[in-house]
């Protein structure tokens, strides 16, 4: 069986690049072939934006400076992408317990390659969701132009990657899928509020402000709004930190999450 022709050099960048692409592509295919998951991933953001955003705009928006629909739209978009990859990464837990990932774990690639492949895969899965949410926002007449559209896609991509790294950090400390399911409501739900997904958090009491500053989702949401509201009168009312600062915090914690998560995950994997 002669199969080595055209081979990427083993262990080199080509090999690891091909492996990352292959792992990521597998996740995308899996997503596209799972109709129930496709349906549910679009449904919840649409409910949040349509009912919550539309409802709050109708109730409070008329008497305030806030465009609640746009505010919630940007918050939910960042939150959906961030959480989608974070939770997707946890499928590594499922994978290692049954079937297929054994094949990935015994292949001659770095453990970082596996993790990066997984994060890129979940990001690929998150992006069509993001695109769907943006189109829904346009239908609901969220103000949009080419610059905003591009800004949302770019910051959406960053939010998804950042969520993947956060998921990785969590994964290193979670022994099983069951434990993950029990823990997740406590990790994700509070951040909807401390990160300001649904409501402004400009004037939080000091203690809550500290909790908010410790919420990774806050920076992804704020970065997205920073670009969305750039050069608008609402910018100073809505955006908490300048985009460069949000980006710097995300980049630094991304690296931290990745290193801690991967080391811990590999250790837990082999040192049973």
């Amino acid at each position: 069986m002669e199969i080595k022709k055209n081979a990427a050099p083993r262990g080199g960048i080509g090999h690891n690049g091909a492996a990352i692409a292959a792992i990521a592509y597998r996740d995308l295919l899996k997503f596209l072939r799972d109709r129930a998951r496709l349906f549910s991933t679009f449904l919840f953001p649409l409910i949040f934006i349509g009912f919550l955003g539309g409802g709050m705009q109708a109730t409070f928006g008329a008497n305030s400076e806030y465009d609640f629909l746009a505010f919630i739209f940007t918050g939910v978009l960042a939150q959906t992408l961030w959480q989608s990859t974070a939770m997707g990464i946890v499928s590594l837990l499922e994978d290692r317990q049954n079937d297929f990932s054994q094949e990935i774990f015994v292949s001659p690639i770095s453990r970082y390659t596996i993790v990066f492949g997984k994060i890129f895969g979940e990001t690929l899965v998150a992006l069509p969701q993001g695109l769907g949410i943006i189109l829904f926002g346009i239908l609901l007449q969220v103000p949009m132009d080419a610059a905003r559209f591009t800004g949302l896609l770019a910051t959406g991509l960053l939010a998804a990657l950042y969520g993947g790294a956060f998921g990785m950090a969590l994964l290193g400390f979670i022994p099983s899928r069951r434990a993950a399911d029990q823990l997740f409501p406590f990790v994700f739900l509070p951040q909807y509020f401390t990160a300001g997904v649904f409501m402004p958090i400009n004037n939080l009491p000091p203690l809550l402000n500290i909790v908010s500053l410790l919420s990774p989702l806050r920076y992804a949401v704020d970065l997205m709004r920073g670009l969305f509201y750039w050069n608008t009168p609402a910018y100073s009312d809505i955006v908490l930190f300048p985009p460069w600062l949000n980006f710097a915090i995300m980049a630094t914690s991304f690296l931290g999450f990745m290193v801690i998560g991967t080391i811990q995950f590999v250790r837990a994997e082999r040192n049973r």
Partner: protein
Amino acid sequence: MSPIIQVEHLVKRYKNSPTNAIDDISFQVAAGEFFVLLGPNGAGKTTTLSVLTTTLAPTLGKVEIAGYDLTRDANRVRAHVGIIFQQPSLDQNLTAEENVRLHANLYGLYPFRPAFWLMPRAYKTQVHELAAILGIANEIHKPIKTLSGGMKRKLEIIRSLIHQPRVLFLDEPTTGLDPVSRRSLWDYLTRVRAEQETTIFLTTHYLEEAEQADTISILHHGKIVAQGTPAAVKAHLVENYLLVDADDRAALRQELRQRQIAFSETPLFRIDLNGVSAHQLLKTIDTPLTTVKIHSPSVEDAYLAIIQEHDDDRAKTNGN
């Protein structure tokens, strides 16, 4: 020739466990050998295999595979081994071809392409060859779910061989397969072994699969309790015996006593050979015989006897 697998004083103790799952085992496997690891459930077979295939870190000891240290050079070891897990490890969401393509990418054999038609010609030829061997030319682009259990196992074996591993680890590969699929799988493996000189490391519960092995190792309570060729392991039993019977049983009984040939009645007359050939023994008996059966122990007999012997020893030790 230096061994392809060298295990020295390997110990594995799981976290929070008071005992060792593998308790100081050492063995070697020569290149091209067919090595079988046997043992009852919980003996440590899968743990040993997990350590050798780099998915589990050893607690103590040294393992070298294809000349590479398992702890220091895990990726090099992985590049030289193929593994068939106890549980099927095909991705059910992908087609047969997509599973093979993913493997080829993970092992750095081909660049990544998102579709079959974009892959290099050499790869396409290879896949068509594989499909022909499997007899699934029409199913190669269909989801894995549509293949039978035997086909899936074969596909896993073919997939695990495309990077030309020097050692193929098989963890109970025929469990759950019907006899036809099992036979066809073994025919294929035998051919692969002959063509590629791949070392086969097998764990199995089907002891007849161990009859063709070069070396058998029996693991019990984490320790190797017997090891050698199938003949050597069987010799441990010294249980070659002859079963005979005659119409005139009284005459046969009397003759055996006269000639001082030890026997027992089971109800056939059982005569232990004790190194004497059956032919030699039969020549000394004049009473006309109606039944003659030579019993040679199978690997299964040897296995059961060895496990029983060690369980008895342990019970005695614990009783004291």
